[in-house]
């Protein structure tokens, strides 16, 4: 509902508040952006709507307090009101300003908790992506696609090609199909990192010794960018996340290509012989 309210605002004004969406969706922030990136997954939509709702409530509260303060300063300054009153109690007023905030909080808690449970995990995952944090790059594994495995490392500034954003581009983006429930399993090989993509409302620590689970279903094809969001050492600012979301059939083509491309990857299969055998087949 609130998004519809926002739609009433002229497009030019709205453009300031949200990143531009066009045919090739590219989800990263833009200069002087004032509001969240556009939501591109069911959880992100819920979180986005919640934030619009919270913003409205919070702006009203701030303006209310500001208006009260201005009125008080005009009406009760020492010139306007030389003799102060001695009132120090008003039970009704005190009950009201305790009860009303409680009601506001209840009204906030309901959509907030709904969004929280929606974003937590999926029960019917169609595929799984494993994300592993390393100092200072990400490793991705596709256990349902013959354990395709590769590292995703930032592209240095001097090696950037035309159109690649600085500090956000990686050598191997992670590919995902759109409209698919993807289970995400996150862990780390060294310190705590955090795999975060704002437009998909994903933000979860990769924790050494643990596997954290969440999910995503991307609405439309495009490029989705994010950055490591937990201080992880010297190059914390230089391990971006780049998701390329493809239609399902194109994703299948990518999988076939990737099986070949990453088969002889140094970082790929470190253990099981089964995978090495398959890799051999693929190379031939």
């Amino acid at each position, binding site marked *: 509902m609130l998004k519809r309210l926002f739609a009433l605002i002229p497009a030019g004004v709205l453009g300031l508040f949200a990143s531009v969406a066009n045919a090739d969706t590219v989800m990263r922030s833009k200069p002087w952006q004032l509001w969240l990136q556009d939501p591109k997954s069911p959880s992100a939509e819920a979180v986005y709507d919640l934030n619009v709702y*919270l913003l409205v409530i919070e702006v009203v509260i701030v303006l209310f307090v500001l208006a009260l303060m201005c009125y008080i300063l005009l009406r009760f300054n020492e010139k306007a009101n030389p003799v*102060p009153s001695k009132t120090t109690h008003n039970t009704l007023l005190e009950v009201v300003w305790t009860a009303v905030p*409680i009601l506001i*909080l209840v009204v906030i808690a309901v959509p907030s908790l709904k969004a929280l449970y929606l974003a937590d995990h999926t029960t019917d995952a169609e595929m799984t992506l494993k994300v592993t944090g390393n100092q200072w790059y990400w490793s991705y594994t596709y256990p349902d696609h013959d354990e395709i495995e590769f590292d995703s490392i930032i592209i240095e500034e001097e090696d950037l090609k035309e159109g690649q954003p600085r500090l956000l581009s990686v050598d191997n983006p992670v590919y995902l199909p759109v409209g698919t429930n993807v289970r995400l399993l996150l862990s780390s090989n060294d310190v*705590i990192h955090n795999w975060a993509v*704002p437009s998909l409302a994903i933000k979860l620590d990769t924790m050494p010794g*643990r596997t954290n689970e969440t999910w995503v279903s991307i609405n439309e094809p495009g490029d989705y960018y994010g950055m490591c969001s937990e201080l992880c050492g010297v190059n914390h*600012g*230089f391990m971006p996340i780049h998701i390329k979301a493809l239609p399902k059939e194109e994703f299948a083509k990518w999988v076939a290509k990737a099986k070949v491309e990453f088969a002889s990857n140094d970082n790929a299969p470190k253990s099981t012989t089964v995978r090495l055998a398959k890799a051999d087949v693929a190379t031939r």
Partner: protein
Amino acid sequence: MANEAAAHDHHDDHKPAFWTRWLCSTNHKDIGTLYLATSMIAAIVGGLMSWYLRLELAEPGIQFIDDFQFYNVLVTAHGFVMVFFVVMPAMIGGFGNWFVPLMIGAPDMAFPRMNNISFWLLAAGLILLIMSALIGDGPGTGWTVYPPLSSSDFHPGPSVDFGILALHVAGASSILGAINLIVTIFNMRAPGMTIHRMPLFVWAILITAILLLLALPVLAGALTMLLTDRNFGTAFFNPAEGGDPILWQHLFWFFGHPEVYIIILPAFGIISQVISTFSRKPIFGYLGMAYAMSAIGVVGFVVWAHHMYTVGLSVDTRAYFTAATMVIAVPTGIKIFSWLATMWGGSIKLEVPMLYALAFIFLFVVGGVTGITLANASADLVMHDTYYVVAHFHYVMGLAAILGMFSGFYYWIGKMSGRQYPQALSKLQFWVFIIGVNILFFPQHFSGLAGMPRRIPDYPDAYAGWNYLSSVGALITAVGTILFFVVLWKTLRSGEKVADNQWGEGATTLEWTVASPAPFHTFEDSPDMTGKAPAE
């Protein structure tokens, strides 16, 4: 008013010689002054660090700091210095020492010599902390010191150990100070000043001291575990040997969340005194105010994991912490509205302390509502670890605490020094500072909403605009800070002499009944407060 005799008790104004007076001091006013001076020195250190960070972040790309470990060290040290060596010493050690005994009509603190060791442990802690940043590679862990990043595998060398020792020593200092304040407040109030007649500043310090006493030992325990992990082969936080890095986060934030109330509650107390004085009205809803602070203290101990929404807590746990965290908005709302109601019907005089108190209320509300957003674990899926969080805690904890300290400084400098601050210059300082900090921190909401992570030395080009504005704000704030030291210099050098009660009938607490500057010894005979109205 309450005690004419003690007010002009000049024959007890005998001070020891310089070295004895300042190094071996057992006088609560001198120790308070030492704390305030230390806080100001630390503020310059911590401020220079943040200005250097803002210079680096003024434009995308690398400007000055090409050693990113050093960038992280600056981020870490800035946080530690501001929290442990600027705000806490000024509020609790400085104003608490100076004015708790004066406000309750006590001759000094309960344990004057323990007071001395509290201060010198703090000074030692500050030196250890600065050494930690200068030795080896420095601790680039952030002030939260999360293992495994802070473990010996990823931070070899002695710098993190120095940081741990600095916090241990500063923590011991605070625990001793807290015990001293609690005992003083419980045992040394003037006859007739019941708990429910204490000024709200004393209430605030009492609750703060209790929080310190409960929270700091948990930090000390966690720090000791980290120290033995690093040096003696234990594995409390090492997952490879069966430990758990999340255990650290639980322990740290069980201390860390009460810590933010430790920082802001004394400011609440100062603001209550100032609002009441300059509205010439007793505080509205005195008991509600006192117990709202107590409630904030209690609830503050059961919300810690809202700092940990992204570590992989179960969804039900996050739901609980969301609900519990939002509850804090209720007592905080009571305080805001009670301050407004105190002003309502008053006869408001806009002296500089009052300007700061009004700015405090407004900025605290701004920071408070972003806190409601951040309380939601679902909203945190896009907010966590972004500049939105940085903006939030700089408003509620950084700015509000600093504004409370400025308010207290202008309110009490006449009592402490016997001299009045220069009016025009002080108002200029107020406006420059307020404009500066808002240009500095408000744009960070926008870069955070757009997704900019914290603690990064360089950022994607899209964030350039807001970051540049933020850095301009940092420069204006720097001017405001320099102006403050000019005000301080002029006040102490050539300020006008002030009357014993310079604020007139609105100032009803006991410190205004003694001479200005307050004599070396005050209230050697307890003032009789029997039957007096709450000294609010």
